[in-house]
C-alpha cells in the first residue's frame, strides 16, 4: 500500500483524483473542497515561481498560455529541493519538446538566457582582474596563460537572436529582432547581471579558455576559423564587464 503522504502528493497534483480518505472538516465530515486549498497553494506557488523566473517567456506566450503550460510543467517537474532560486532548470528543454509550440523554436534558448541571468545573480562573489594589471602582462606571458572567469560569467550560443528578443520584450523602444544567430555573454559587475552580444567566435574562445586552453593556442584556433576575429574588442568587453577573474601564466617550457 502506498504511504499516506504518497497518496496526498498524488492527489495534490491531480484534481481528478478523489481526496484521500480520512481527511475531515471540523464536524468529522469529508474534507471535500478543503483539500483544494493545498492543491491551489502547491500548484499556484510553483507556477508563480516560474512566472517570476521566466518573464520574457511569459510575455512571448501571453499570460494565459504561459499559465496553462506552467501548470503542466510544475506537475511533471516539481522542484528537486527547496531552493526555489534553482527552479526551472528543465524548463528550456520542456519548451522545446512541447509540440504545440514547435513553431516557436527560439523559446528554449530565450528561457536558457533567463535561467543563466538568475544563476549569474546568485553566483559566488569574486574580484575581477584590474584591467591596468592585465595590460602590464607581456604578450609572451599572456600567450602561455590560462584565463579564469569569475563565477557569475555565463555564455550562451543560439541560432536565434535571443538577446534582441529579450530586449524587444523587456526594454522600451528596443527594435524588432531580425533573424540571425546570436551568442551572449552574461557578466555581473556588482549585483546586477548584464548581457552583451558576443562577436562571431567569441563564445568559442571563452569556452576554450574555460576548458583550460592557453590563450595563445585558443586564439590561434579561432583565427583559423574566423580570420577577421577582433580579439582586442572582445578583450575590452571582458575586462570592462569584470568577466575575467585571474590570469595564470603556465611555465612548462624547458630552458
Amino acid at each position, binding site marked *: 500500500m502506498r*504511504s*499516506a*503522504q*504518497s497518496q*496526498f*502528493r498524488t492527489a*495534490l497534483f491531480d484534481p481528478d483524483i478523489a481526496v484521500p*480518505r*480520512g*481527511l*475531515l*472538516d*471540523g*464536524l*468529522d*465530515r469529508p*474534507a*471535500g*473542497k*478543503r*483539500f483544494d*486549498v*493545498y492543491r491551489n*497553494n*502547491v500548484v499556484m*506557488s*510553483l507556477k508563480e*515561481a516560474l512566472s517570476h523566473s521566466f518573464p520574457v517567456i511569459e510575455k512571448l506566450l501571453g499570460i494565459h498560455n504561459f499559465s496553462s503550460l506552467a501548470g503542466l510543467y510544475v506537475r511533471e517537474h*516539481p*522542484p*528537486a*529541493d*527547496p*531552493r*526555489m*532560486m534553482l527552479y526551472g532548470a528543465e524548463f528550456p528543454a520542456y519548451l522545446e519538446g512541447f509540440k504545440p509550440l514547435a513553431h516557436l523554436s527560439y523559446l528554449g534558448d530565450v528561457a536558457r538566457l533567463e535561467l543563466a541571468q538568475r544563476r549569474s*545573480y*546568485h*553566483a*559566488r*562573489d*569574486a574580484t575581477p582582474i584590474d584591467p591596468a594589471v592585465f595590460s602590464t602582462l607581456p604578450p609572451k606571458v599572456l600567450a602561455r596563460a590560462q584565463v579564469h572567469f569569475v*563565477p*557569475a560569467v555565463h555564455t550562451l550560443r543560439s541560432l536565434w537572436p535571443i538577446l534582441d528578443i529579450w530586449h524587444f520584450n523587456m526594454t522600451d523602444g528596443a527594435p524588432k529582432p531580425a533573424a540571425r544567430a546570436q551568442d551572449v555573454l552574461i557578466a*555581473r559587475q556588482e*549585483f*546586477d547581471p548584464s548581457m552583451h552580444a558576443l562577436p562571431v567566435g567569441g563564445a568559442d574562445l571563452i569556452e576554450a579558455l574555460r576548458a583550460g586552453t592557453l590563450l595563445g593556442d585558443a586564439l590561434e584556433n579561432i583565427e583559423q576559423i574566423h580570420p577577421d576575429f577582433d580579439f582586442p574588442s572582445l578583450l575590452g568587453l571582458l575586462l570592462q564587464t569584470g568577466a575575467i577573474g585571474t590570469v595564470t601564466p603556465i611555465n612548462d617550457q624547458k630552458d
Partner: protein
Amino acid sequence: MFDATRARRPDLPNAPGVGYKPQHFANILEAPAPVEWLEIHAENYMGQGGRPLAQLRHLSERFPVSVHGVGLSIGGEGALDSEHLARLKTLCDWLSPASFSEHLAWSSHENAFLNDLLPLPYTNATLERVADHIDQVQDVLGRQMLLENPSSYLAFRESTMRETEFLGALAQRTGCGLLLDVNNVFVSATNLQLDARAYIDDFPLECVGEIHLGGHDEDMDDHGAPLLIDSHGREVADPVWALLEYTLARSGPRPLLIEWDTDVPDWPTLAAEAQRGARALAHTP
C-alpha cells in the same frame, strides 16, 4: 534531548520584527522604527553570493536576525534531506542568527519539493518521527530550534492527540522551543470549529520563543462554512489582534513578528502593523 545549556539562548528582543523583503532594504536602514529585528526565509539565502547575501550581511550587522526555514519537511514520512540540513547549517554558521525556526508540516516527498506547508496527523507514530527529526536538526545545527504551529484547513481521522498536546510533547522530548503563530491559531480554530482561546489556554506558553502574526483571506467550504486561508497578503485581522492580546496577557512579552509575504506593501504600511504590535507589547503586563 537537546541540552539547552550548551545552546546560544534565543536573544530576539521582546519587540516587533518583520519578515524581511528586499524592496524595504533602504527603508530599514534609514528609519527602521518600530521594527527592532528581522526574519528571513532560509531558502532565499542559499545562493552562493550576490545581492541577497550582501544585503543580509549588512542587515545582520545592524539587527538581530531570525532564520525561518520553510523547506525542511520536518513532518515528512521519509528521512530529512541531509543536504538541505547541511545548507541550513552553513547559513546558520555564517550568520549566527538569534533564532532558528521551522514548521510542524511536511513539504517534500520522494525527491519532490511541493513549496507548501502540508498537514500531518497527530499520533504516537508521527510524534516519534517528528521528535527524531527535531533531534537531528538540533544536533546538526548545534542549537535549539523553534517549531511553529501550522494553519489547518482539515483534520485527520487518525489523529489521537490535540495539536497543543502534540507540540507540548515535542518540546518536552526534544528540548525545542515553540513558535506560536496566533493567526494560524485563529485560522485553524475557525476552519475546524475549535475555540481559539481554549487553544491558547492549552498551549505550553513557557516554551514560546517567538510569536507570528499575519493576514488571512476568507473563503467558504462545501457547506458554506467559513474557510480561512493563511495568505500573508494583507493586514492582520482585528480578531487576531484580540487573540494576540489574550495570548500576551498569559505569556508575557515575546518577540513579535509581522509576516506579509504576498502583495507586499510599502514600508509605511508594514511599519504601521509593527507599530500596532509595539502597542500590544506595551500593554502586556
